[in-house]
């Protein structure tokens, strides 16, 4: 074996410059791959965190008819909170906090402009423990009084109303009656989650209850776990209780993340396109280099074959060379990519000013961070190796198909 490794490396080093040039696309391709995937993963994590911190918590208990794409005005299907469910949530060892929400859609008007909004009636204390939202209110608030409204910063831009002005929130009661409530503006909500900032307003849950005539019914209980990875264990624990109430169901944050997951799969698709392109570019380069060296070494190979080297030995030799080029290149790419990945993961890129007005459908923070994932780097490196092997098969195959006598001439 040592003999062949030695031979392969000596052959690779025969044309150092050419080998370097061959490796370049693989090196940069691998590095780019790691970098971009890390970035996408970072975006993904950000949006998942955004979803959980501001929108979905870890889990929601909702009415069976709760629908993500409910249209029109009015309150989401509301339900009474069973006492044993509440007791369970208060005592479960998995639960960090839980908060009731009344969720309804309506029109928010300042008398001049009217905007469709999603309104959440919440209790300040419980909600603050379950979500980060109320910590992102400017100016900061320490409570959510009756009669006040907090407005997503992007909605607020539509109104340009002074602090302390009155908004009219118009919706339909639980029974469907057209009604409106006057609420005074108390702050704007800037979470970085576009769904919240662009569409959501917050009010006291008691206001919402009275306004919608719900008699203490609610739309959802959001549950935050002490440890998000306990989700499945918690679901198993809560299931028997939910089963008792056929009007209720559980939705985990992942189900609420369908948009993100859709983007996720689009992302996976585009990254596989990227991988494919790198594979082609790198592979063609390596195949070309191996093919060149095959033709240059035709007589040498003929000699080896005359001495009794089998076809498989010759193929292995070239594949080993290709794999080595691919591996070394991929390893270099891995190192470069990992350095870049470490940078964007631990330092981050400040894109605050850059993307303020760009709508990419993702919540964007001003400092963007990638995800540091060594496994990703190894996978990319492994790819380089595969490319090298795949690309050298054809040239090697070509040479063993040649007539020995002719190659010796």
């Amino acid at each position: 074996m040592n003999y062949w490794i030695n031979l392969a490396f000596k052959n690779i080093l025969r044309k150092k410059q050419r080998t370097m040039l061959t490796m370049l696309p693989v090196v940069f391709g691998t590095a780019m791959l790691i970098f971009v995937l890390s970035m996408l993963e970072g975006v993904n994590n950000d949006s998942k965190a955004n979803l959980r911190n501001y929108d979905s918590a870890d889990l929601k208990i909702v009415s069976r008819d709760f629908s993500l794409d409910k249209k029109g005005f009015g309150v989401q299907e509301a339900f009474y909170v069973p006492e044993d469910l509440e007791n369970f949530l208060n005592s479960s060892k998995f639960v960090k906090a839980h908060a009731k929400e009344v969720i309804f859609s309506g029109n928010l008007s300042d008398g001049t402009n009217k905007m469709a909004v999603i309104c959440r009636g919440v209790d300040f204390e419980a909600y603050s423990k379950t979500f980060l939202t109320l910590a992102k209110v400017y100016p900061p608030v320490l409570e959510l009084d009756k009669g006040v409204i907090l407005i997503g910063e992007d909605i607020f831009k539509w109104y340009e109303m002074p602090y302390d002005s009155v908004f009219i929130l118009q919706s339909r009661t639980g029974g469907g009656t057209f009604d409106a409530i006057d609420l005074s503006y108390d702050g704007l909500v800037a979470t970085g989650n576009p769904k919240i900032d662009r569409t959501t307003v917050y009010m006291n849950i008691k206001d919402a209850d009275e306004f919608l005539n719900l008699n203490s019914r609610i739309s959802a209980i959001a549950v935050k776990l002490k440890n998000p990875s306990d989700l499945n264990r918690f679901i198993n624990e809560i299931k028997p209780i939910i089963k008792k109430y056929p009007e209720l169901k559980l939705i985990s944050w992942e189900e609420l993340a369908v948009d993100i997951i859709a983007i996720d799969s689009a992302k996976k698709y585009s990254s596989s396109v990227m991988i494919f392109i790198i594979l082609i570019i790198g592979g063609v380069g390596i195949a070309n280099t191996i093919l060149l060296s095959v033709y240059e070494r035709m007589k040498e190979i003929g000699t080896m074959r005359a001495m009794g080297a089998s076809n498989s030995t010759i193929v292995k030799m070239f594949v080993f060379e290709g794999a080595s080029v691919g591996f070394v290149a991929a390893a270099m790419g891995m190192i470069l990519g990992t350095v870049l990945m470490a940078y964007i993961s631990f330092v981050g890129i400040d894109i605050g000013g850059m993307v303020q007005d760009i709508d990419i459908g993702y919540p964007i923070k001003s400092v963007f961070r990638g995800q540091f994932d060594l496994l990703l780097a190894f996978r990319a490196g492994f790819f380089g190796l595969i490319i090298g092997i795949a690309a050298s098969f054809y040239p090697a195959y070509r040479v063993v198909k040649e007539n020995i006598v002719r190659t010796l001439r």
Partner: protein
Amino acid sequence: MKKIFSVVFLITLYLASSAMSIDDVLERVEKNMVRTNATYLSTMKIFSEDGDRSMQMKMYVKDEKNVLVEVIESSEGGKSRFLKKNDAMWLFIPSAGRSVLIKGHMLKEGFMGSNFSYEDISENRKLRDIYEITLEEDSLYYILTMKAKTDDAPYKLKKSYVMKDAFLPKKEEIYSSSNRLLKEFIIEDYKEMNGINVPTRILMNDLLQKENYTEMTYDKIDLTTKIPDSYFTKAYLER
């Protein structure tokens, strides 16, 4: 003597005025508003800050449970038909090639993107059943104040200013439970036909939005030609 005369006058006036009970007013208004066997050609104009739109439609009303509306022209080019049959409402969009049942929250939405909700034109229940009604009057109007008594009433609070001479509401005001005026319907014009007063121009103002209103004018009204029953079928809707 003078004093007695004035007392008698006041009593007469009182008797004359209270001669109209709430039911009387509602009945007279209903006679003008509810139509049977009517064909209209009407134009609806929707004004808003985002731009104005208009559409022309033909409406066939057999009675309150059989209504067919055909949009024959609209500024957006979209054509559609809709049928009210008993309590169900169907919308047919020819380009989609099928009809959908309008139900639930959709009923609360604006009819053809206007400020009228489907509910505004589809409510079959008697006002008495939905609202607690009180009557006041001044020299020009009977003022009906309607407070929702069921949780599924279309509006929380509604005031209707019925013209004493025509028995048509000059204006209807929609309030929130906290007495904020949210929208108003205004009958701008009407004419007398076959002994009833038929509105010919109606306005609906959304007061939560600047310069946002819908205007409905009836260009042709035919109360005599018999409409075939076949018009009020799903088959005709989807033809």
